[in-house]
């Protein structure tokens, strides 16, 4: 069974601090996506990484795909209160089913002003 584990589950930091969220699996994925979800809404796609070792930047957010395509990280620089939300990673194209997308359980991020 493919699993994606996210850590930490909860994170509360002061505005202006840096943070890193991790997404780990024992399975290889063809691609990995990061989403942000607000309460009562659907997840919003932030980025997709496809190549092992790939690094993508989205303003203050930096995403990295592990060399073996089994893990990923999300780093936020100088966090702002608007970054508060549930961050989800999702792996796709694993060995068991090309059409199954596996989500992690999420990291709930709270940025204090």
């Amino acid at each position, binding site marked *: 069974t493919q699993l*994606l584990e*996210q850590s930490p589950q909860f994170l509360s930091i002061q505005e202006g601090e840096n943070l890193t969220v991790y997404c780990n699996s024992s399975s290889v994925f*063809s*691609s990995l*996506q990061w*989403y942000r979800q607000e309460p*009562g*809404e*659907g*997840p*919003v*796609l932030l980025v*997709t990484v*496809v190549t092992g070792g790939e690094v993508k930047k989205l303003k203050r957010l930096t995403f990295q795909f592990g060399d073996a395509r089994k893990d990923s990280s999300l780093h936020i620089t100088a966090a702002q209160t608007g970054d508060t939300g549930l961050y*989800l990673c*999702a792996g*796709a*194209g694993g060995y068991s*089913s*090309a*059409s*199954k*997308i*596996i*989500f*992690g*359980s*999420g990291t709930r991020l709270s940025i204090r002003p």
Partner: protein
Amino acid sequence: DAGVTQSPTHLIKTRGQQVTLRCSPISGHKSVSWYQQVLGQGPQFIFQYYEKEERGRGNFPDRFSARQFPNYSSELNVNALLLGDSALYLCASSLMTVSYEQYFGPGTRLTVT
């Protein structure tokens, strides 16, 4: 351009009843996937449809079924509702590229009493 739309937004049903949820994908997207998200967890994959054919199925009982129409919209049906079926049901559409990028609707909040 309109995003993914879902109806209804909220629904209250009693145990044993049946429910039908609807989803319209982004124009040009031929793939629709359904997810169940229980409070505090990441979305769990239920089904994926592409060109009206089922392409993937998650670990859900046969009470869950779905179909995709010629206009690529989709319905998710759940029979013999249980209290544990209470969740946010999310629909996502995609172009079925190698990156598996998905775009989610706002979800349908189902409460079973």
